């Protein structure tokens, strides 16, 4: 038996996910949206590891590794897009101004 029951871990993951979702919905700065996305990915990965711990299966941690790779790629591409937006002379990182892209 682990320190956390599955229900408690699910509660923690849901709270983290809700905080990340609120961050994505509320904040308009692209950097903060990426950070909120990372929090949400972490919550999902936590559920995988908790399920793997409950059923004594290593597959949960394999999925954790996959989510880690996904998060690394997502962050790298997102930050490259942010740098690109900034390099094209955009004064703000507001996500809602992304529909003004030209070319």
């Amino acid at each position: 038996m682990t320190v956390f029951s599955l229900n408690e871990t699910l509660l923690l993951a849901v709270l983290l996910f809700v905080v990340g979702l609120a961050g994505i919905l509320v904040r308009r700065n692209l950097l903060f949206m990426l950070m909120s996305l990372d929090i949400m990915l972490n919550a999902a990965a936590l559920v995988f590891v908790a399920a793997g711990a409950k059923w004594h299966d290593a597959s949960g941690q394999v999925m954790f590794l996959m989510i880690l790779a996904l998060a690394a790629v997502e962050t790298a591409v997102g930050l490259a897009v942010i740098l690109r937006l900034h390099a094209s002379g955009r004064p703000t990182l507001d996500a809602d101004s992304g529909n003004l892209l030209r070319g």
Partner: protein
Amino acid sequence: MHILALTSACISILGAFMVITRRVAVHAVLYLVVTLLALACVLALLGAPFAAALEVIIYAGAIMVLFVFVIMMLNLGKPDRDRETEWLRPRAWVGPAALASILGMELLFGLRTLSGTGITFQITPREVGLSLFGPYVLMVELASFLLLTGLVTAFHIGRHWPGEH
């Protein structure tokens, strides 16, 4: 031991809440690092030491360094000294430092009291590796495709284009 996990969980939720309410991006990155460290504690207490180590190394290490680099490259407007004094005020780092010191005390306490008994069952890195390169080997290949795609995409997007101000 349950209280240790509960403290880590509270710190992670508090840190995540502070991340989305900060106004300066660097402060949010500090809180995000604390959140990830607390989540690593939770993972270790759940019996997944390999996942906890990877969380610290890759998430709190590599990905956060990416964030810090980008923030450094974005804030080139104001003079350096003003920004440094703004960042180095105690109000900026005392919150993350307090949360991180709670985590550190938890780690010391755990090392002292739980070193012999430990966590009763763990999924060791050996089992994870056997599973990763046994039934999931196709997924590893797909993940390598994903990483290569991300590399090419980041290189292509971040390239300097001629004829641009």
